[in-house]
């Protein structure tokens, strides 16, 4: 596996590229990655995301994304997009402007929502808006 990670937040087919990354590769990415399973349980949480939120991975991994980890995304703008994609078994790849409450401060971000039918994990990618 290549040691140099040059994944871009906007590039296409990003979901399957992230699936293939090792833990250290994930931690080297320039954007936050939250991966969760079909039950909404967080299975993947990279270092940048952990630093931005101020939460260490052990407080997050194994917990429910939309109720315990990121209740701020539990509305039609984010959570329902994933639900709709699951119900219709369709792929989701959309980028939205959002405001996260990182360490209780409003922070403008871009969220990229990724879901592929049949894939083990869905992803929310987080990049601070410049």
């Amino acid at each position, binding site marked *: 596996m290549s040691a140099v990670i040059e994944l871009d937040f906007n590039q296409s087919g990003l979901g399957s590229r992230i699936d293939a990354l090792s833990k250290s590769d994930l931690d080297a990415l320039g954007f936050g990655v939250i991966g969760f399973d079909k039950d909404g349980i967080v299975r993947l949480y990279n270092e940048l995301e952990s630093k931005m939120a101020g939460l*260490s991975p052990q407080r997050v991994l194994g917990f429910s994304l939309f109720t315990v*980890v990121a209740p701020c995304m539990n*509305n039609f*703008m984010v959570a329902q997009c994933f639900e709709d994609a699951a119900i219709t078994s369709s792929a989701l790849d959309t980028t939205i402007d959002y405001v*996260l*409450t990182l360490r*209780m401060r409003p922070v403008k971000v871009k969220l990229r929502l990724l879901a592929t039918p049949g894939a083990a994990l869905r992803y929310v990618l987080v990049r601070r808006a410049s």
Partner: protein
Amino acid sequence: MNALPHLDVATEYEALLQFLYLAPVGLVQTSRDGEIVFLNPVSSQLLMPLSRDGHLSNLFTALENEAPDLRHLSNSFAGASGMICDALRIRLHADTTRTAAPETLSLSLVKLDPDRLMAVLSDVSLQVNRERLLRQNEAWLSAILTGITDYAIVSLDHAGCITDCSSGLSRVTGFNPESVYGLPYSIFYPEDATTPDRVLDRLREADDNGWSLDDGWRIKQNGTRYWGSAMIAPLHDRQIDADEERTYCLIIRDITDKRESSENQRKQQSCDYLTGIANRRAFFDAAELELERAKRSPRPLSLILFDADHFKAVNDRFGHPAGDEVLRHLADTLASTFRQIDVVARIGGEEFAVLLPSTAIEDAMAVAVRLQKLIEAQMVHVEGHDIRYTLSGGIAAMGPEVNGLADLMKRADQALYAAKANGRNRVEYWKAA
């Protein structure tokens, strides 16, 4: 003094942070102008869908459309500190495409000192809806209960069969208590006003809502009709899952003397002004409910659409008052041909719909053809004219391959179109193209 020598500040900070992340209410701290300094995730969850510009920098701006006077309320608050508003209810703009979107937020705003405000936000949609339902039920109950002199109380088992009853039973219904044990409570209804499926539906609805209420024609032991109200309430523990252990209480009242006032109220909302049968809206409400029931415990369900043939020619030749008379005649004939449990409605100019619960498509066809022949054989007398007209009908049945009410309506409409195309004065089944 070092009171907490082992305190790990970083760990404590993280735990506090998570405490705020997880708080199930929205917490926001702002400057006196509403500029957001701190906010927790639930605040963002509730406020982001309201934000027009995708920002969340000012609380007053975020709520500008829903609570436009908030800024003024805050600015005009005289004290240096104190409660600016306590659990203020903010009605959000209804968006029917979002299934679980909040409808009402509650906002409390506290002035901490001249420079800082603290807000608490929560989604109170469920609570507000529950309160509304309670108010409606209260009004309904008081309308029903006022002046009621007699009632019968009947105990039912899980299948809706009678296990016990009060002495009021013989006074209200004429039935001797001993003679009804083991019989389903449908014996209190006219034969065409309920079905074995509906008997169970009412029990399920009582399970779900805490009670099930309906009023309409009821029948006494000697066959005479009275206008009655029936309320079913579950007696069992709602947590009990075992079906056989469920028991219910049925209260029957004779409200014949109240029929006019309670019917008038209902008619204004749900009846077609010209014909007196159900209107389009009432039809769709009743049909959605019936589809829901059929989905929960599958049973046959048929829909017939009728259309008066060449109705425009009737209007042109005899005038609109005569046309109206024909429509009233058709509505009356429909209402007397179908059962009381069927939903008969005028859904368009000369278009009528009948929904037949627990009825297979062949049985629906038999009644539809009977009606079609009856209309063909009759004459309507208006202002010295004898008007004959005919009827076309299309029938479709609910099934797993039918996608909801719209799809069922579409199929019946295609069948109706086929009946028209095949020469009118006939009824057709829906067939796959």
